[in-house]
């Protein structure tokens, strides 16, 4: 009963969070390539 609300809720959670994870990781990879190694991490800087 009410699965028509529950399933979309969980699908939205997976899609929203999954998309954000992928976007953040890809953004990090792209930015990392633009810097020398020593400047890429806060603790290494």
């Amino acid at each position: 009963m009410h699965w028509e609300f529950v399933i979309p809720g969980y699908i939205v959670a997976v899609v929203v969070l999954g998309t954000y994870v992928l976007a953040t990781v890809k953004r990090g990879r792209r930015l990392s390539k633009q810097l020398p190694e020593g400047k890429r991490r806060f603790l290494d800087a």
Partner: protein
Amino acid sequence: MTTIDTAGSTKDATATTGSKGTRMLGAVVAVGFVALAALALFITPPEATQRDAFRLIYIHVPSAIVSLYIAFSITLVGSIMYLWKKSVFWDLMAEASAEIGVIFLGLTLITGMLWGRPTWGTYWIWDPRLTSTAVSFVLYSGYLAVRRLDMDPTVRSKRAAILGIVSFANLIIVRYSVQWWDSLHQGQTFDVADTQMDGIMLFTFVFGVIVMNLFFGWLLIHRFRVAWLEHQIADVGLTEAIEARRREGVS
């Protein structure tokens, strides 16, 4: 930071925002989410009055806790520390945490609306809790918009920090809205002294909160590293521009 893999070739360990620690944490979170979905959707029984719609609690409340209590608190601390110490670390931490907080708050609103339809008969009503939460979403979206303004970075960070502090005041209204006014939204779900839940439902609820908080930790590390990379790129660009101007002056 360069490592040598078993094949003997060199690998740059900082070519991504990941590290050994975050990969392990990521694996734990991924397994945790699968277990949470199994518990929430198949193992826990339906609630006595709300039936299966109650299953949304296992993502709705953990998302709200992460955004309203954890993420925006870090933004508050980061904003104060930036204004006090002019710390770049805290400035970037505040930005990273606010962005993740907005994502989780958006998820809280969507899952809340989906839960509201079968229990209240409507997706949305201008109830004190819902309205104050929507105001928070707008305030922190505004905070993120300020962070993207094309202006002097120091002025931008200062204005964002002030907004980060002011926006937090609304969270007190969100927290106590169900007590201060007549609200359609239920009161506090989880109280350590009186949980009003037991057995597998309570376990799943607490497990969801733990998994969501671990996921927030994983995201915060990656998002902070992205912010740090952007800051460093801007810094390198500025240094190169100054050197170019110097060379122009010499020639």
